[in-house]
């Protein structure tokens, strides 16, 4: 069986050696973009090129192809990077791993477990705290019930109530009964949809994510000119999820016409262009380009792409995740994400390099843009939306990183002026 992680080990070794991707590529006589594909395990490597790379990295080729130690070292480096208030001797990692492989394994395993637990905390706190539909429905039902109970009780218990008051309360009672019927129906239908779902209770956005992930964010039917309605919405159990998915599919269909895949493929083959350049080339707006790059088949890109979309309240409307890119689905995300900062500078393209705290030092290049999504009419404020394309930092390397967290509850940053609430991590979780 082909070892699928040789590229990751090359990347790991290159980083240990302090070599830039472009430097290593030059030494072994290949293009940086080709090396990038190798490092992301998307191109096979063997023979003379493997030997050359091993030589340039000053390691045995077998270490790159077998590489248990390299994988372990990678995990230990992640543990060191995530440590708070403790500086590990990163230079001595290899010696530590080779002298105490058992302890090194335990440390790596514990770190993986911490990361996994942090993810669980994020997911659970996201779900428990934020099911806005349920909270709003319950509030509506209870408030209406309170009004009915109080009014009915007045009518039943007050002997000498004036006729005008009686009429008024009967009218209120009728209004509230209607309201209660509607809100109860909505609540029951919402809970029914939850029960009908095959997976444990999920919010609509999670369903939408699963729907697109199952199709690998690619729709050959739309690339061939088909409309959004040609896509079957399998697996979407709630009306909300279906509606959100349909809107996104409509964009995909429109974007596929505005930026034809064949033309885009030719451009991408020559290297990844800047989104603004692409927008000018196809005479489209920036949101179209950012969406298109997130939904183009992955094999055409040198690096994977994630996407986030929110409205002016910061509510996330769509997420295409990426390994290491964590953003809560319902509010309470870190306001330092360019997705949100773009909202304060509408129509200004924002580009930032991001390091996500609390993770394995995941670093991303983000392009964000806020624009008036809908214009209601003259002299009325437009409804803004913001979109952000998220990609791993490319061969140009990281500089001037902005640090962001997932959300305050699980963010280790101590001196953040944007903090809304204490981190549970600082309380010894």
């Amino acid at each position, binding site marked *: 069986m082909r070892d699928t992680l040789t590229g990751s080990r090359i990347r790991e070794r290159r980083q240990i050696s302090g070599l830039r991707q472009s430097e290593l590529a030059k030494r072994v006589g290949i293009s940086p973009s080709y090396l990038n594909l190798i490092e992301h395990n998307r191109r096979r490597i063997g023979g003379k090129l493997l030997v050359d790379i091993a030589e340039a990295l000053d390691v045995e080729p077998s270490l790159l192809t077998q590489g248990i130690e390299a994988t372990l070292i990678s995990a230990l480096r992640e543990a060191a990077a995530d440590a708070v208030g403790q500086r590990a001797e990163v230079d001595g990692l290899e010696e530590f791993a080779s002298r105490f492989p058992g302890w090194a394994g335990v440390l790596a395993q514990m770190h993986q477990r911490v990361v996994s637990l942090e993810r669980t905390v994020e997911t659970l706190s996201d779900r428990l705290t934020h099911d806005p539909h349920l909270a709003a429905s*319950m*509030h509506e039902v*209870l*408030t209406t*019930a*309170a*009004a*009915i*109970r*109080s*009014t009915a*009780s*007045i009518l039943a*218990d*007050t002997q000498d109530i004036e006729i005008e*008051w009686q009429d*008024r*309360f009967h009218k*209120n009672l009728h*209004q*509230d009964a209607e309201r209660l019927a509607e809100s109860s129906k909505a609540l029951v239908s919402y809970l029914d949809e939850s029960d009908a779902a095959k997976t444990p209770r999920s919010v609509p956005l999670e369903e939408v994510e699963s729907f697109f992930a199952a199709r690998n964010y690619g729709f050959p039917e739309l690339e061939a000119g088909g409309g959004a309605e040609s896509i079957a919405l399998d697996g979407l159990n709630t009306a909300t999820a279906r509606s959100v998915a349909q809107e996104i599919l409509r964009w995909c269909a429109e974007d596929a016409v505005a930026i034809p895949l064949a033309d885009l493929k030719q451009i991408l083959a020559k290297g990844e262009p800047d989104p603004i350049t692409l927008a000018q080339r196809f005479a489209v707006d920036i949101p179209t380009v950012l969406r298109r790059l997130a939904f183009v088949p992955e094999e055409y890109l040198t690096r994977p792409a994630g996407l986030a979309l929110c409205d002016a309240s910061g509510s996330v409307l769509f997420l295409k995740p990426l390994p290491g890119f964590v953003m809560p689905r319902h509010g309470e995300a870190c306001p330092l994400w360019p997705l949100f900062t773009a909202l304060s500078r509408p129509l200004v393209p924002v580009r930032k390099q991001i390091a996500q705290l609390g993770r394995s030092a995941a670093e991303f290049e983000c392009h964000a843009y806020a624009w008036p999504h809908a214009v209601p009419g003259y002299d009325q404020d437009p409804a803004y939306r913001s979109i952000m394309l998220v990609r791993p930092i490319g061969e140009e390397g990281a500089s001037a990183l902005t640090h962001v967290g997932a959300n305050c509850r699980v963010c280790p940053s101590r001196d953040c002026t944007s903090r809304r609430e204490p981190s549970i991590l600082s309380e010894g979780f």
Partner: protein
Amino acid sequence: MSRKVLLIEDEPNIAEAIRFLLTREGWQVETHAEGSDAVQVIQSAAPDLVILDVMLPGKNGMDILRDLRELDDMQRLPVLMLTARGQSRDREMAENAGVSRFMTKPFSNAEVLTAVRDLHAQASRA
């Protein structure tokens, strides 16, 4: 001089029912449905008691209560809080904010009347 209660509630039919009940009990009832200026309204109305909803437009009842208790002359003002959220965490938050009595929706008219009478009697004795 009649006793005055200020009812801050954005649900008009609840406000109307409570206003009716308390008026018949001899209270002068003023109503207000907005959270953002509630503290100023309380200060200018100078009521003997406040009935305060939690979910209000502009500012929620918990924040209003906290801001109110920061004011020197509002430390002892009886505040009856009404909310659809009756979890112990909400009750605790209300107590920390300085609530006098906490009542969850849907409440009965008798409960509201009893609470208002009790709170007023306690405040009068103090």
